[in-house]
């Protein structure tokens, strides 16, 4: 019975070489991958959820202090970043489509575009972080005491703590995403993907879109709390 140990022994390679030994069909494998990815994304939702819950609680308690932080949030950069991420989501969706159509050239093009948008996001984010450092808005580490609104000094620190945790975690996910995209690009160059096998492109696409969704919530919650107070004009 040596043939049981040899992994491909029993399985006629019906659907190309990407079927792993323990699946019966490619469809089963793809279903499992998709479900696994969605399950993973749910854990991600709850991971960020812990920070959103904290945000909800403190925003309720210290709304005015939270609103005052809008003076320091750069809505133009934040808005630009939102647009950049939305563009990257589009190119990611187009990359998946190209893989489904076995269009290797387009796949590579869209992957590269997605990575450019992703990198642009991180660069812009870096500028914002730099501004926060200069203005002394890093809680506990580089905090100037919030002189413009001394009445909110304590509670605004909570918002900035959350700001850095949430955007920092988000940026970390972007970095991981860029790593995954580079992997996809290398695989795409080796012509691995096509109509019969594009699961990795689709899965990493799901991840990328998820990261986009997180930002869709972060933008209004962190940048626009007190935007209507027009603190800039005071």
């Amino acid at each position, binding site marked *: 019975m040596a043939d049981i140990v040899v992994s491909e022994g029993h399985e006629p390679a019906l659907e190309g070489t990407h079927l792993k030994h323990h699946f019966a069909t*490619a*469809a089963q494998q*793809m*279903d499992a991958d*998709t*479900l696994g990815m*969605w*399950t993973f*994304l*749910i854990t991600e*939702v*709850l991971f960020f*959820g*812990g920070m*959103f*819950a904290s945000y*909800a*609680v403190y925003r*309720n*308690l*210290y*709304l*005015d202090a939270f609103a005052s932080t809008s003076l320091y949030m750069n*809505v133009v950069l934040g*808005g630009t970043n*939102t*647009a950049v991420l*939305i*563009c990257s*989501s*589009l190119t*990611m*969706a*187009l990359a998946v*489509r190209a893989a*489904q*159509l076995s269009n290797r050239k387009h796949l590579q093009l869209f992957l590269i575009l997605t990575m450019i948008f992703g990198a642009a996001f991180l660069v812009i984010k870096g500028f914002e972080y730099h501004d926060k450092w200069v203005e002394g808005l890093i809680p506990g580490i580089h905090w100037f005491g919030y002189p413009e609104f001394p009445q909110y000094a304590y509670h605004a620190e909570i918002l900035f703590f959350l700001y850095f945790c949430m955007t920092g975690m988000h940026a970390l996910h972007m970095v991981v995403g860029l790593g995954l995209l580079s992997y996809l690009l290398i695989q795409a160059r080796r012509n691995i993907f096509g*109509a*019969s096998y594009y699961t990795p492109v*689709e899965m990493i*696409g*799901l991840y990328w*879109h*998820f990261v*986009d*969704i997180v930002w*869709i*919530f972060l*933008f*209004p*919650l962190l940048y*626009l709390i007190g*935007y*209507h*107070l027009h603190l800039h004009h005071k």
Partner: protein
Amino acid sequence: MTVHAHIPKVGTLVAVWAALLVATGLTSTVAYFDLGWLNIVIALLIAVVKASLVVWIFMGVRHTTNLTKLFVVAGLVWLSIMVLITYSDYSTRSWNYQPQPWSHAAGNGPAAK
């Protein structure tokens, strides 16, 4: 071939992209006006619509199995369990400790502007 390969139309994807950009502009514009508590409600509504578009079209949930849809919904339900129940503690804390019915508790609800 895989079984449920649904290939989206380029037009659909671009339309979603355009809608997302418009919605982003809308969020920023609305936030510019002081609408009291409506500000956060509108901002969240727009964000939910945007996220739904991404989930439904970009992530292709429209064409996946019911099981996947169930999982997506379950994730959201659990998120809301955590946020809402935690929030409920803070919003009901003052109920018991304020002997005077005619006063508002500190920190209860967004400030009325």
